[in-house]
């Protein structure tokens, strides 16, 4: 039993008197049960938003990106804002499943599956934007280094935009296999419980014939560990490279060496907020409060608080360096950002990202489910505005005052953005009904060490 020991001071990660079988039943329940009205309502809304987005995308591709609100001064706006926002959200999933695995944090097990699902679904949304903002989507394959009809005109490997192509596609595909490998034993569990032949067939197919041999588990654990080791620098590199899209340019407000760490912290910040948004609802709807406990939410709130403060530090550092550099253009870019016509966006960013997470210093507030949910939404809004502020305020007043202008989105800009939110929730809602949303095989390994019942049993034995 020694391997199951955990200090009594640690709060249990699995609440209630659970057996291995209870975990199986409760994780399988949302898949085996029927969807309720709430699910169908949410799904219908998400699907409508998604279809609106599809329409907007078709209109954009058919007519050209002139249908967006871009002008000759602001040539990059919502498209890239949304791209960075979605990629950022994706980062939390990898952080939870990979970094917390390397640090042996057991609390990751209740939430890693859904966080990784969120990663994959949000990177899918992110990937849409660079593709459609090319304008000529049918030439999208030109970003790949493949021989073509122009003799051998290759891609430009010096360009940060091309690095992004490699970073995002590596990130998406590696996250996908990491997620799927972890899913195999849980799909196998659903397969072995399935009663209806169709369901059995589907889950047999998805589980790749997983049988749970000792040797398979040995390899499984090693593969998970190595993938975590690979995914950790990968996730840091992805947002670093995203920040290079701006940092390697010569635009005042973008040309900043602090961008890579600042973007990574911001990504983790917004991602954890999104995990909180999703899981606070899911734990309730799918009756998983015993596995996604208040403690999980509290710990995520602490991560939000810390990364929010890092982001705040970066904002202040940027302002300081702009002043300290003595470069007029740089100074104006930041003065304009904070006090120019977009002051309201800057204020919104500051209050949502720097001010609001500070409430989490209070134990009472960070343990409150309602408050955590509100803050998670506030942070997501704030992080969208952060990207908007960086991108649009740095562009809208360029070197030539006669071309100074403002950006206003058209209904197509809004349609595509809302459409990706819809698409994201369509995917997540389908996932919540068909996938094992908790890594049940992993959770079973910590039942005896971190389950409430076993902890109590052990403590009473010691006395």
């Amino acid at each position, binding site marked *: 039993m020694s391997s199951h020991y955990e200090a009594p001071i640690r709060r249990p990660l699995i609440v209630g008197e659970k057996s291995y079988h209870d975990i199986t039943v409760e994780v399988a329940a949302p898949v085996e049960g029927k969807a309720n009205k709430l699910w169908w309502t949410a799904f219908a809304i998400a699907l409508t938003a998604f279809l609106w987005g599809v329409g907007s995308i078709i209109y954009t591709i058919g007519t050209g990106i002139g249908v967006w609100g871009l002008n000759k001064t602001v040539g990059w706006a919502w498209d890239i804002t949304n791209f960075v926002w979605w990629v950022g959200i994706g980062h939390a999933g990898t952080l939870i499943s990979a970094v917390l695995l390397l640090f042996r944090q057991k609390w990751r097990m209740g939430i890693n599956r859904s966080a990784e699902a969120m990663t994959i679904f949000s990177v899918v949304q992110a990937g849409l934007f660079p593709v459609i903002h090319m304008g000529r989507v049918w030439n999208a394959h030109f970003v790949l280094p493949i021989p073509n009809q122009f003799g051998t005109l290759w891609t430009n490997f010096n360009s940060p935009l091309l690095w992004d192509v490699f970073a995002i596609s590596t990130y998406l595909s590696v996250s996908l296999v990491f997620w799927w490998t972890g899913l195999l034993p849980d799909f196998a569990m659903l397969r072995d419980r399935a009663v209806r032949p169709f369901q059995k067939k589907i889950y047999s197919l998805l589980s790749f014939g997983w049988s*749970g041999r000792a040797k398979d588990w040995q390899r499984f654990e090693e593969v998970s*560990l190595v993938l975590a080791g690979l995914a950790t620098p990968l996730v840091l590199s992805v947002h670093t490279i995203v920040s290079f899209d701006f940092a390697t340019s010569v635009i005042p407000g973008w040309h900043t060496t602090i961008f890579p760490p600042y973007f990574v912290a911001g990504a983790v910040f917004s991602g954890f907020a999104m995990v909180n948004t999703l899981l606070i609802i899911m734990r309730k709807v799918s009756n998983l409060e015993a596995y996604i406990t208040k403690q999980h939410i509290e710990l995520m709130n602490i991560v939000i608080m810390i990364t929010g403060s890092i982001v705040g530090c970066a904002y202040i550092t940027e302002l300081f360096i702009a002043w300290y550099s003595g470069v007029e253009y740089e100074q104006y870019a930041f003065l304009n950002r904070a006090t120019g016509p977009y002051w309201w966006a800057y204020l919104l960013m500051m209050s949502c990202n720097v001010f609001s997470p500070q409430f989490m210093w209070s134990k009472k507030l960070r343990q409150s489910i309602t408050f955590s949910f509100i803050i998670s939404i506030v942070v997501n809004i704030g992080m969208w505005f952060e990207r908007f502020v960086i991108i649009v305020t740095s562009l809208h007043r360029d070197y030539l005052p006669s071309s100074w202008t403002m950006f206003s989105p058209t209904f197509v800009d809004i349609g595509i953005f809302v459409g990706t939110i819809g698409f994201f929730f369509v995917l997540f809602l389908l996932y919540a009904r068909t996938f094992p949303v908790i890594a049940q095989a992993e959770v079973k390994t910590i039942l005896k060490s971190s389950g409430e019942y076993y902890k109590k049993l052990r403590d009473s034995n010691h006395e």
Partner: protein
Amino acid sequence: MSNKVIQAMYNDDDVLMDAVKEVRAANHHIEEVYTPFPVHGLDKAMGLKGTRIAITAFMYGCVGFAFSIWMMNYMMIEQWPQDIGGKPSMSFVLNMPAFVPIMFEMSVFFAAHLMVITFYMRSKLWPFKEAENPDPRTTDDMFVMEVAVDGNEAELVSFLEKTGTVEIKVTEKH
């Protein structure tokens, strides 16, 4: 040698671990153990060798790294050197810093994907593969130890019954 195996079922991982140790101590051959989750230390108790899959990941990573260097050198320096933004690509060494991000991404890409493919091949996991666990409960809360019958079957069954098994079955090896 007979093709018969005894499948002893357990409902607890700690009992299983003790049973595995006892069976090994009594010099019986454990064919296989099926568990619903990774039981830590089980591979060592069964006498399984460590897996070398992490080493393959390192080698695949090296391949990816080398491939990315070859690819970028061939495409940008040798085959069609271009002058982009006043930065001519005439020398690999001078261009190298700009190649670092993709060198890294390709190393990770190769290491991760080829390692996972290796794992799937070695553990025989792919779509449409039939599952081979002897009982559907082994993905839920049951642990099955398969012991090869070698000699006296009844004696082995009674030996296993004393290890805390909850169910016991003698079958042909599949």
